[in-house]
């Protein structure tokens, strides 16, 4: 049994964000519990309380007790908690420790000091059950996000923990990989493991979870049983600020716009990409894994480097902000230094209050807008977005959709590579399918 007893916690670094207030929770063995709620509501904090990262890694003020099978997590060392739970995190790039897959599956067991033969037989069992023999003995750096996440699940599996925790595991995955993740979770559930998952994207878990909690401001606002969940509709969830439970493959969505002006794409050596992109529209670019979405983006950027028309807002926008203030960021993008003009651009994107802030200290959505401001400053009229809504909750997804519509109204052309069918339905006026 897993329990939270009157737990309150606030982070030392940011006391307002993600705090927990007097939470009581009991999760019986074998239950699959889904935690949901908007960003910063505290659902990730619950996961961290259970795996011991709070308070041992993320420091702050804690009261109450967290128990796994009667043992107090805050009183244990992290390496002791490691034997009781396995956690799959959000970012596939940051959660593997070794460079090769086999070493990764062995890693947790090695830390527990299990005998070598035992570890090898466990790896064999996991590989068989997960059907991942083709992923063995490979360099993890050369794998796709979906494959990395599968390895992360497999490395949790080899430890055979009674409790499995998932912290937004699908945030960076496309549709197909998300469905594979669903299969793995179903497998765990069928084996009677206790599973607790914090997620924004509900569609792939809603029908297999036993219970769902809505967390709001660090407290349990709603506690839905299986029957409540069956009765739930998308409209009602939207009122709670939650995402859709309908399973829509973005590849199946239809959208088309009237033919107007187009931007001509140069042909690519290996892939057959669409030759024309309609201007002044919001075009979604969708495709299965390996259909060349990344290559497409890179190709677009490269072929338009001369004409200086295209600007890409990267998935990890941190990579494209370099300076120590938002204003400076826009200034170095202008052909001639002109502070008045820079401030005007910031105003048009509601960023004027942040002019002196360091770009890295802003929220994800604000950083996206800073990048767009840079695009405007350098006079680009075609904006590429690479998965702008990955890991965003309903509210922030709506905000991104509004922003894209606003850009279109200003006469810009928007191209969004995305696996988020809700975003496509909310704002895209055209769709391009990449076929492999």
């Amino acid at each position, binding site marked *: 049994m897993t329990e939270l007893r009157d737990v309150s916690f606030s982070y030392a670094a940011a006391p307002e964000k993600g705090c927990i207030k007097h939470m009581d929770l009991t999760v019986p063995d074998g239950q699959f519990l889904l935690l949901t709620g908007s960003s910063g509501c505290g659902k990730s904090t619950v996961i961290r309380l259970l795996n*011991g*990262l709070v308070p*041992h*890694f993320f420091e702050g003020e804690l009261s109450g007790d967290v128990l796994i099978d009667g043992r107090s997590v805050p009183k244990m060392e*992290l*390496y002791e*908690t*490691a*034997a009781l*739970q*396995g*956690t799959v*995190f959000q*970012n596939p*790039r*940051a*959660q*593997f*420790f*070794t*460079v*090769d897959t*086999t*070493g990764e599956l*062995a*890693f*947790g*067991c*090695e*830390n*527990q*000091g*299990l*005998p*070598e033969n035992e*570890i*090898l037989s466990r*790896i064999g069992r996991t590989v068989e059950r997960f059907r991942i023999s083709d992923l063995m003995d490979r360099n993890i*750096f050369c794998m796709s996000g979906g494959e990395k996440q599968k390895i992360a699940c497999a*490395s949790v599996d080899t*430890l055979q923990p009674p409790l499995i925790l998932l912290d937004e595991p699908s945030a960076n995955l496309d549709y197909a990989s998300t469905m594979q993740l669903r299969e793995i979770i179903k497998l765990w559930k069928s084996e009677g493991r206790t599973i607790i998952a914090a997620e924004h994207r509900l569609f792939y878990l809603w029908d297999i979870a036993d219970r769902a909690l809505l967390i709001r401001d660090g407290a349990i606002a709603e506690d839905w049983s299986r029957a409540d969940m069956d009765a739930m509709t998308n409209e009602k969830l939207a009122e709670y600020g939650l995402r859709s439970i309908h399973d829509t493959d973005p590849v199946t969505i239809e959208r088309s716009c009237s033919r107007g002006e187009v931007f001509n794409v140069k042909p690519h050596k290996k892939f057959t990409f669409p030759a024309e992109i309609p201007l002044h529209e919001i075009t979604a670019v969708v495709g299965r894994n390996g259909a060349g979405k990344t290559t497409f983006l890179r190709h677009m*950027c490269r072929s338009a*480097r001369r004409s*200086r028309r295209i*600007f*890409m807002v*990267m998935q*990890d926008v*941190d*990579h*494209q902000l*370099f*300076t120590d203030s938002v204003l400076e960021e826009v200034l*170095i*993008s*202008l*052909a001639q230094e002109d502070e008045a003009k820079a401030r005007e651009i910031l105003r048009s994107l509601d960023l004027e209050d942040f002019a002196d802030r360091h770009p*890295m200290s802003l929220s994800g959505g604000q950083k996206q807008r800073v990048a767009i401001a*840079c695009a405007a400053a*350098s006079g680009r009229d075609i904006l590429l977005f690479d998965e702008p809504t990955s890991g965003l909750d309903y509210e922030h997804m709506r905000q991104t959709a509004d922003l894209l519509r606003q850009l279109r109204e200003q006469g810009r052309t928007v191209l969004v590579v995305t696996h988020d069918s809700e975003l496509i339905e909310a704002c895209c006026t055209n769709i391009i399918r990449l076929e492999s």
Partner: protein
Amino acid sequence: MIKLDPRTKLLLLLAEAVIVLGGLGGGNAEPFKTVFMALPFLLLLTVKKYRTAVIGAVLLGLGLAAGHIPTEGRGAIVLLMCSGILTRFVPSLMMGNYVMSSTRVSEFTAAMERMHVTPKITIPMAVMFRFFPTVKEECSAIGEAMKMRDIRLGGSKVMQMAEYRLVPMMTCSVKIGEELSAAALTRGLGSPVKRTNVCRIGFRAADIAMFLLCAAALVWIIWRSVT
């Protein structure tokens, strides 16, 4: 393909450092010195690092040639210094390149554990090797973003250019590092329990041959120096 145990590779690095880099025994080390100058290149070929081997061989060749060009005055000094530095450092660096490119991280940690090196050194080193490719990924992502943004930074702003490249690289790396650290800790890294390791290392025929080579060189140098 010849596969050497990481400990054998360390021995070869030591031999390289003593005989070629350190110049133990001077002229008495011949012909072993020549053997150790050539060995890293042969080993690089076994792991298909042809480009590195060729570049290294060219540098070493230049170094050897520079020592034999008869010149006078200032030019001679520069030439001789280049010759001295190249002939000493290149074979050793090539051996280092071979060791780094042919050893997997788990092999390396297994070898360190067998040599009873404390986990206080092996754990940070394992993290470091894991983190190199991440830093590289960050660097290239930032480089690409810079090209795309086509930032106006002319001649006089070299320092700023370095700042705008290094600082985001560090910021992004530190952020990923935090996540990596959290993930590793929930999986029990740093436990006082003695770690096991599924990576199998051990000495084979090729290792014994390398040991014999090093021993022979040592005996030869001592014997020649005494007589």
